[in-house]
């Protein structure tokens, strides 16, 4: 029963006009959720949590760094699931959404790398350290870039999305292996690694802002994904009737 309604719901969302409507209605709520969580999270991170006794105020960059890192990886998982659905059932919306994930994931990866580098400067005394997590993130960034470049390299958008989806899935198998191999490599070459966040150094007072920021970033991801997917859909279908109708309804029809 639940499966049936779910399937029906899925089928409905697979139709471009309905998806566009859904995205238009839902995305403002996600943006609102993002704003609220961000304000609360930033306030707590900057004013409520006392400065770290070793790292003083530097450690506050963690509240952006860590949620971005999580989201960078989670985005790949979402993208891989969407890509698998796109390849198996050939649902166009999932093709578009999977491809919309790539730039968002790349952005979070880049934020993670940038904040990691800024954080590392006072900690390690260098802008770049071959730390396992940062190295994995750097490779993840290149995987995202490869997916985006491949998607951009074909004329037919649907064919492009399906071919890039094959790469997404190949990457999904490889990413955990890359991650662990890099971790192994750093332990072998450096012996002891200096971690930005040690397992024990996460004080309980640091948890609430971290959670708020994590939720904020989830909202941001959802909103960005819906908006991107809807924009791509409107652009691809701009000559089709449903887009014309939607534009007319909002007084934006082209002459």
């Amino acid at each position: 029963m639940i499966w049936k309604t779910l399937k029906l719901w899925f089928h409905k969302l697979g139709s471009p006009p309905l998806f566009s409507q859904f995205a238009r209605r839902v995305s403002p709520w996600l943006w609102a959720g993002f704003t609220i969580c961000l304000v609360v999270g930033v306030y707590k991170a900057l004013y409520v949590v006392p400065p770290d006794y070793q790292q003083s105020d530097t450690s506050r960059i963690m509240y952006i760094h860590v949620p971005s890192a999580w989201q960078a990886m989670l985005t790949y998982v979402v993208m891989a699931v969407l890509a698998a659905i796109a390849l198996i059932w050939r649902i166009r919306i999932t093709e578009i959404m999977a491809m919309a994930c790539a730039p968002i994931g790349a952005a979070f990866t880049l934020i993670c790398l940038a904040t990691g580098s800024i954080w590392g400067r006072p900690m390690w005394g260098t802008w770049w350290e071959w730390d396992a997590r940062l190295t994995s993130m750097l490779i993840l960034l290149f995987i995202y870039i490869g997916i985006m470049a491949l998607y951009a390299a074909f004329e037919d958008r649907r064919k492009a999305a399906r071919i890039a989806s094959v790469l997404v899935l190949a990457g999904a198998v490889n990413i955990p292996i890359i991650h662990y191999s890099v971790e192994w490599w750093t332990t072998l070459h450096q012996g002891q690694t200096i971690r930005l966040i040690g397992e024990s150094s996460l004080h309980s007072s640091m948890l609430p802002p971290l959670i708020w920021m994590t939720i904020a970033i989830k909202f941001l991801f959802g909103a960005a994904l819906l908006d991107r997917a809807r924009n791509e859909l409107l652009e691809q279908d701009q000559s089709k009737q449903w887009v014309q109708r939607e534009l007319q309804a909002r007084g934006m029809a082209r002459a």
Partner: protein
Amino acid sequence: MVIVNTLLSARQLTFQRHGLNVFQPVDLALNPGHAIVVQGSNGAGKTTLLRLLAGVLEPSDGEVLFEQDPLFHGHLPAVKGDLSCRENLAFERKLGASSVSIASALLQVGLAGLGARPARSLSAGQTRRLGLARLLVRTSPIWLLDEPYASLDADGCHQVDQLIHQHLETGGGVILSTHQQMPDLQHPIQYLAVAPVGNGCPQGASSDA
């Protein structure tokens, strides 16, 4: 329509590019001794239809049924330029186990005596002829010929008709596309017009979802 005798059939066959159907849905049934001529202007989707029938492309909707693998003679001759004509056919023959010898296949397509030449050195028309010789050294009752008359001279076109005639005589079936030269056969010919789908077609709810 008797299914048992049908060599190849297609039902409501469509293919999409850029999210649009390339042509209106196609239904067809190919019977032994029959030829189907696919007609349509440039870009109407004749090649796409033949590649769908051959199984190279997966249809967006509908299905193609055949018992025995068809032979597909495409736009591109599937000839390796670095191999000689004889080597090309010898390789194909290993896959097909035909009773026709390589020399006789070369003779029938008008390439007698050119067996040792590297395929790279052949002219466009000769390369097409070598591609046709593939049909002889591999056996299948179903021939799918995409523009078999392209780049051929009058003599070559006549030879194509001869090949098709022989094939139909022995109970085979042929589907061929052409936009200029019409086949000259004594056998029943069906004509199938491929109608392109114009731009701005109604696409309210996407059919592929």
